[in-house]
């Protein structure tokens, strides 16, 4: 029981961060970022390169991963999504662009890093063991704590910083924000960059535990979509709730259903459909939720 | 005149907020009845409940004694109560004629499969839809713009298009959602004439919600006045004009004037 709880918190904190990035981009630009999982993988590979290959301290590598994804996100918004949104009336266009980007990142990752699974040395050794009721390696605990700090930091940033307030205004009502003097183009770019950065940050954190490989991108995006649907798209609290719920469902499923094979996700999906039948907007998907 | 539509003790609550409280009135056959009230009086909530676009919290709406509230919108339409929308709700990339043809869905005699296989019933329907569309469009004076795409039409024509779409379903009762909103005096008078013509020549009962007082006074046989979700008066335009409560309600809200 304690083990499931701990695993749930661990998984949930990672997932919540992935969902946060996705929902931020969605809230700001109404873009469903198919390439989110690939951005996560990229973050993992950057961290792998600097920490695992070049021997930089982990924190520096993590920072570089964030910076890379931030810049990448900003460029993608400025030169790809921005122009397409301006010129196309259909939301499908951005979806196509995002799908193209996902393929593109996959191709780049394949060319630069190859197909192999990559791992990095542990950042801390040892295993926390409480009477065999709760076993958790210290590095997992550390990563989990870091993730929770990042989430709290992000929420504080959105609540209290000038940028955060502008982003929230933009997410609530683009036109009104513009009238209030918010530089829409600039903050769209910052928001997209932040969303990408969050994906990269999780990738960088998790590479120390799960390693990273090319094939992780797509499934990560899919999990992020599920979390966003559970919590309600475009809502920060919803993303966190969705992430934690999915984390716990997965932890419980893996513990309870393991003897039946890999049916956890099947059950999660069926429950999600039933849930959406009653609440299509997700848990917190209401305006200003 | 017989009673066609009965609104019985309708109440709508959103959380702790009461949008409509215990509203009851009747619409007689072939009359034009308007529901008016200052902004926020609960007109559009009531309108949506009558057309089943919103469920009621309590109370019901009857058409010829049969309940039509808390159903699906398309079922209410089938029973003969059809609403119009304000001008943004149209089939944007269809022409006027196409819109009116597609809106004759309820008049179809052949099944969907029949249309697919091209049965003779379907062919008769298609011809009938076409000629009825032309007739309706001519009736509403829109022949000149019959082949214009809806998204290219000016606001005034869009309202008429909305009425054309509603009429194409052969309704017993047509519910009009603020048909005069945002119109200048001349446009309003043209619309008043059009709505009257629809009632007089098509035998359609009209229930409309509106806050343009002069137009409502001119067009209505009877008027129901809402204020803060309560029904405060019901009567002929003359009675309403002299009703103390109504005058107070309208004086109380600064941005609307009674202007008679």
């Amino acid at each position: 029981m304690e083990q499931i709880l701990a695993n749930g918190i661990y998984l949930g904190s990672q997932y919540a961060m992935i969902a946060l990035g996705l929902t931020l981009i969605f809230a700001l630009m109404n873009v469903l970022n198919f390439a989110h999982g690939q951005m996560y993988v990229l973050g993992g590979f950057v961290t792998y390169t600097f920490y695992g290959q070049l021997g930089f301290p982990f924190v520096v590598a993590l920072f570089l991963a964030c910076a890379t994804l931030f810049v990448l996100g900003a460029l993608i918004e400025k030169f790809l999504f921005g122009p397409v949104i301006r010129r196309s009336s259909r939301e499908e266009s951005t979806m196509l662009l995002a799908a193209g980007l996902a393929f593109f990142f996959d191709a780049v990752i394949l060319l630069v890093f190859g197909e192999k699974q990559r791992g990095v040395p542990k950042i801390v050794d040892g295993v926390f063991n409480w009477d065999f009721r709760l076993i958790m390696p210290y590095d997992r605990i550390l990563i989990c704590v870091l993730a929770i700090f990042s989430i709290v930091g992000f929420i504080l940033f959105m609540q209290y910083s000038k940028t955060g307030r502008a982003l929230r205004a933009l997410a609530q009502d683009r036109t009104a924000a513009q009238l209030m003097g918010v530089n829409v183009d600039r903050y769209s770019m910052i928001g997209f960059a932040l969303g990408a950065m969050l994906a990269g940050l999780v990738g960088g954190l998790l590479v120390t535990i799960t390693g990273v490989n090319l094939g992780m991108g797509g499934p990560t995006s899919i999990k992020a979509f599920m979390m966003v649907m559970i919590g309600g798209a475009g809502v920060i609290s919803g993303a966190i709730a969705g992430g934690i719920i999915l984390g716990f469902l997965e932890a419980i499923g893996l513990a309870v259903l393991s003897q039946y094979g890999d049916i956890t996700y099947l059950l999660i999906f069926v429950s999600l459909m039933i849930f959406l039948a009653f609440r299509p907007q997700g848990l917190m998907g209401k305006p200003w939720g | 005149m017989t009673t066609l539509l009965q609104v019985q003790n309708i109440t709508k609550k959103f959380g702790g907020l009461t949008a409509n409280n215990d509203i009851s009135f009747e619409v007689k056959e072939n009359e034009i009845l308007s529901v008016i009230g200052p902004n926020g009086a609960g007109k559009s909530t009531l309108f949506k409940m009558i057309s089943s676009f919103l469920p009621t919290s309590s109370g019901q709406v009857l058409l010829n004694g049969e309940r039509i509230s808390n159903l699906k919108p398309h079922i209410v339409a089938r029973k003969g109560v059809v609403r119009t929308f304000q001008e943004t709700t149209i089939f944007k990339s269809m022409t006027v004629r196409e819109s009116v043809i597609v809106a004759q869905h309820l008049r179809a005699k052949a099944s969907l499969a029949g249309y697919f296989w091209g049965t003779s019933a379907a062919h008769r329907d298609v011809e009938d839809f076409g000629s009825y569309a032309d007739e309706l469009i001519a009736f509403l004076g829109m022949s000149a713009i019959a082949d214009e795409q809806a998204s290219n039409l000016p606001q005034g024509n869009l309202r008429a298009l909305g009425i054309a779409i509603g009429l194409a379903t052969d309704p017993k009762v047509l519910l009009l959602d603020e048909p005069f909103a945002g119109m200048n005096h001349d446009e309003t008078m043209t619309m008043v004439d059009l709505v009257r013509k629809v009632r007089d020549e098509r035998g359609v009962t009209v229930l409309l919600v509106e806050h343009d007082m002069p137009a409502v006074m001119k067009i209505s046989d009877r008027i129901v006045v809402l204020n803060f979700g309560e029904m405060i008066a019901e009567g002929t335009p003359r009675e309403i004009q002299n009703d103390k409560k109504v005058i107070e309600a309208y004086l109380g809200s600064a941005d609307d004037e009674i202007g008679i």
Partner: protein
Amino acid sequence: MLKLSKTQWIGLAVFLGAVFVAVPMTIAAFGRTDLFFTLTSVGLLAIASAGVWLTFYIGRINIGQGAFALLGAYVSAILVTKAGMSFWLSLPIAGLFAAFVAVLIGLPILRLRGVYFAMITLVLTQVFTLTALALPITNGAKGITSIPLPGELSLFGITLIPDFATLGNPRVAFYYTTAALMVLTFAAMYRLVNSRLGHLCRSMQQNEELASSIGVNISYIRIIVFAISSFFGGIGGAMFGSIAQSVYPSSFQVADSVNFMLNCFLGGLGYVFGPMLGTLVLYFGWDLLFEFGKYQLLIYSSLLIILMLVLPNGLLSMKIPGLSPKARSGPEVAGKKEEPGQ
């Protein structure tokens, strides 16, 4: 009963002539029989894409066709290998079963709109892959292999379709079968779109609220259309399984679902025959890039991105104003939740 103009008749004749006579003859003349397989694939993918296009027609972005193709492939494979059923009977059953499952799944998810529907259908594809891995009847990751080729189809003792195993080159037979299926599919699509159901779909695509106010049972039509769409997916998948003589959980994945969607976009959402064109261009485009070896995906995705930048409204630049997010939102389902906030 089809009412076609003279040009349309000529176009149809040219198309049929090309598909059934000119292309096979050209291929035979150049001895490139491998092209039969390529074109068969294009045809089958076009059938599945046609289904996706149809869901677009009611204003839903469907990224779940891979799930139904996979389902169809498994149903047919299981019926043929485990129950010994004739492939020709299993094919329509596969389609109908996919349609049946689409009805069950569609009841809850078709209420979602816009990106919500897109997301859930995408997840659906992944879940079907996982299901195929988990269920005993699908044989897990090993899949179902050595599926026999389609047998003889005869009616009252007259052979309509010969046993594929006895043919010198079953690929040619598959080509003709697929071509016939594709022509049937698109003829049905054309008919459907130009009949009353198509008009109602169009009205729903442009404004679901208004459609329901004129008496259209929108949830019923959505289900019907989704079922037809998935029927096409099931048929396409079942044929694929039969050609490959094997089905694996990876036969149709998320990437395939995305590609079905891309085919429709590329061909243009305004034309019934758009998915066919889109599939042809994308499939051959991908094949041509094979020359570039490991840079294939990079160039392909770059081209896609550039295409979106240059022609944000698709290859044929077909604009469907009714598909804009505004027209699709409404208080009934999506309206409020399209509005982001925190």
